[in-house]
């Protein structure tokens, strides 16, 4: 059994108060070990985006405990959360979220700007090479296809060598060919030992993961481990 990377016990997230109260997460218990490839599935409104925000240290739970790499996230300051996001988590978004004014390598370099250490260009270029974009280093997002843009985003997630890759509907804006490429890239990252949490509403996408969780009404309802 490998080491536990993240652990949630009784995590709830409540938005609003009184009549307008929305319980986006309702007592979630979850353990993800290092090296796992977990897919979280659910319809919109099931709470999977809220779960992703909390897993990604973008938000803190209203109640319950969440440990990331042994540290209690629920008690972290905003500064410390930023530091954890920067060092330990690589984000891949549905909208790619690349800055249009920056070239591919400048986009990949972004997380490195918020930490110490040099050789930013070398690291950014090697991360791009890792996703097969070594000849697109100086291209701007508008000059790249959707699949290529998402691969730039994956390179940006990898450049800090994080403990967790968190992908939120990474293929949501892509055609089927590009989607297959992105999923193949994620599968390969997993094969190389990377921990990945993938959020999606698409069962076909979730099927590449080794472990699948279903969500409904803020709760995890079933779990299926791939063969």
């Amino acid at each position, binding site marked *: 059994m490998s080491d536990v990377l993240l652990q949630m016990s009784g995590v709830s997230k409540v938005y609003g108060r009184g009549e307008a109260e929305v319980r986006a997460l309702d007592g979630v218990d979850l353990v993800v070990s290092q090296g796992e490839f977990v897919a979280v599935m659910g319809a919109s409104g099931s709470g999977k985006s809220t779960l992703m925000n909390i897993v990604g240290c973008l*938000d803190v739970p209203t109640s319950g405990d969440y440990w990331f790499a042994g540290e209690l996230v629920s008690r972290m300051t905003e500064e410390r959360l930023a530091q954890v*996001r920067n060092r330990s988590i690589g984000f891949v978004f549905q909208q790619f979220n690349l800055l249009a004014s920056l070239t591919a390598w400048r986009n990949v370099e972004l997380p490195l700007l918020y930490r110490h250490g040099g050789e930013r260009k070398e690291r950014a270029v090697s991360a791009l090479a890792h996703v097969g974009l070594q000849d697109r280093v100086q291209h701007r997002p508008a000059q790249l296809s959707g699949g290529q843009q998402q691969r730039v985003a994956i390179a940006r997630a990898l450049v800090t060598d994080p403990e967790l890759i968190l992908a939120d509907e990474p293929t949501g804006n892509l055609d089927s060919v590009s989607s297959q490429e992105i999923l193949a890239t994620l599968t390969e990252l997993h094969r190389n030992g990377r921990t990945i949490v993938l959020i999606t509403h698409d069962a076909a996408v979730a099927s590449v993961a080794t472990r699948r969780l279903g969500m409904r009404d803020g709760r995890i309802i079933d779990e299926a481990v791939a063969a």
Partner: protein
Amino acid sequence: MNVLRTFETALRGIGAHRLRSVLTTLGILFGVAAVISTVGIGQASSDTVNSRIASLGTNELTISGGSSLSGGVRGGQGSVATLTMNDVKGLSNRLDAPDISAVAPANQSSATVVNGSLNTTTTVVGSSDAWLDANNKTLANGSFFTSGNVTKHALVAVLGSTTATTLRASVGSMVTLASTPFTVVGVLQSSGGSGFSNQDDQVIIPITTQQDLIAGQGKIQRIVLTSTSAATLGSAYAEANQLLLQTHHITDSTAADFSIVSQSTFISTAQSVTNTLTLLLASIAAISLLVGGIGVMNIMLVTVTERTREIGLRKALGAKPGDILRQFLIEASTLSLIGGILGVAVAFGVGVIAPRVTSIGVDITLVPVVIAVVVAAGVGLIFGVYPAARAARLTPIEALRAE
């Protein structure tokens, strides 16, 4: 994130929105250029006024008669004739007033002088033969009228160089003044004045004749005198004051029925006038700088709103609130600083072009340049705080969700 990288990021942010950055910069640019140019114009006109006044003579004193007081309203100095020829004689006494070198009465009025078909309206001065020395003037042609001419109420005149040119008159010409024919006996050397107090446009006639024709018997409006040198002006002032108080039987000097002014009084008055004008212009310019600052704030707010997603992304990737705050603050103050530096360049351009195209001089000095640039950067910093703080406060989730 260290300062250098923040700067790099801020500069790239500016470069990514060139048109907007240029427009923002323009506001600051004109503000700074306006401040520096107006202060420069004020400086130059103050210098011009000083040098013109200094050219009028630095060892001259002018004594004016008392002012009238009717119904609590005080008239101008000299509106009551309290000065007499006796005072002129008293002041001319070398024993009582050793530091006074020349004394002359001066009655001034405006009159039309005619020479054949030509005429001009000019200042007519009634004075004595000492006028030339008491005013530091010299003759170009002919001679000045004598003390004999004064006693005999002679119809003789000395013309200023401009007046002589205008009337095409020379020594020996006959000119008509107050319906009376005068013989021109001399023409003054040009003293180079200009404007409303042109020292070259005047006619000097014997004071006795002037009193007969214009002022009335025995009246003296002013006495002009020179000290032996510029250094003795102060003691000449004291001697004149003492003598007049004695002869007018006044014990309380605050109740004096005369007043003495020197050119230095004029200089300080003129200086305070130009200083006030400069201050006024500079405050208007400062307001335009303020408006430029508000422009910076406006653009930065637009920028923050427009770049909400970028801010959210940066935060998700590990930017701390302080990193975002610094990025936008540096962006705002860099914009203003660039505007400030360009504004200095424009002001220098104005300083070179304005004196050639117009008669306005511009003296650009270091202090207003430094102040304007520092203030410009400060304006960006101050007006950047609010937008930057708004950017820093955004939560990454909400910011990422923005369209």
